[in-house]
């Protein structure tokens, strides 16, 4: 129970960002004439802001059912890698629970859990992850509902402040990690390469860079070990 609480506390730190991102999605969905119940159901069942923005965008351009479903699945391919990582950290005795709660794997829930587990601060990564989800999910739903309901933006200063929580939180998380040389290399490459690749391949940059950097650094490490 205490690890769920710890996870909840860790998740609560990104609640403002989460709420505002989904508030933005609620606004975009309203503008794109996505019906309110459908917009809320998408938040619950897709639970991935980038894919949800893509759905709203394609819907606003008159996209059909196949296009909307395809764009959501393609944008969410990264979740496979995230779940692959979490599956290696969760205990192996609660398979049904894993299959239920994996619905809420997202960049925030996955990274928050992974870094706490890796730092040795968490024994039961699955319990911690559930705590993070319990903080993040209501923020996403409330944010979406408020966005749909209010239909107008936050004051500019508050909207700007809310966008700061996520990058600062992950910066602090990275700073708090003891990193090997290879991990530090992955951080530097991820930081430098993601923005330009994201501009070249909108919606894919983060995924392409992270996968390339992970495979590249791991490949180089293995080559070095082979030389030894």
């Amino acid at each position, binding site marked *: 129970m205490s690890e769920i609480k710890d996870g909840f506390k860790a998740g609560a*730190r990104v609640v403002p960002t989460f709420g505002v991102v989904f508030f933005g999605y609620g606004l975009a969905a309203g503008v794109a004439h996505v019906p309110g119940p459908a917009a809320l*159901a998408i938040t619950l069942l897709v639970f991935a802001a980038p*894919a949800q923005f893509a759905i709203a965008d394609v819907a606003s351009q008159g996209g059909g059912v196949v296009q909307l479903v395809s764009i959501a699945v393609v944008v969410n391919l990264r*979740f496979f890698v995230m779940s692959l*990582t979490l*599956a290696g950290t969760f205990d192996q005795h609660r398979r049904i629970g894993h299959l239920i709660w*994996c619905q809420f794997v997202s960049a925030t829930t996955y990274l928050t859990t992974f*870094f706490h587990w890796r730092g040795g601060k968490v024994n039961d990564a699955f319990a911690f992850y559930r705590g993070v989800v319990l903080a993040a999910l209501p923020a996403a739903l409330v944010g979406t509902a408020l966005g749909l309901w209010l239909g107008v933006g936050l004051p500019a200063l508050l909207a700007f402040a809310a966008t700061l929580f996520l990058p600062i939180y992950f910066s602090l998380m990275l700073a708090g990690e003891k990193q090997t040389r290879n991990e530090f290399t992955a951080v530097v490459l991820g930081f430098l390469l993601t923005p330009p690749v994201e*501009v070249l391949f909108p919606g894919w940059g983060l995924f392409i860079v992270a996968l390339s950097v992970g495979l590249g*650094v791991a490949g180089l490490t293995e080559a070095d070990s082979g030389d030894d």
Partner: protein
Amino acid sequence: MTELQWTVVVLGAGLGTYALRAAPFAWKPFREFGRRHLRCLTYISFAVAAGIVSRAIFLSGGQFGLGREVWIKVLAVITALLIYRVTRNMPTALFSAVGVAIAIHWLVA
């Protein structure tokens, strides 16, 4: 689009995304793969976290953002790291840095 079409979109997008999330938990070969290649997946996790930071700082609407807000975000991150170095307390560093960013934004507006 009709109500039925929206229902299909919600279910299709939800099930498609769920399949991607659940596959590694559902099939043993994927779990084994995850355990065997945890080092590579760790590098990927670090790159994702760093990428989220730089994307949030430097990109705006899918393009490189320039000007004041980028510098305020950079300053906010540096402030947070400095405060964290001194206090080793994440919430203090997080909220202080956001406070500093709001103050600078307000002052230069």
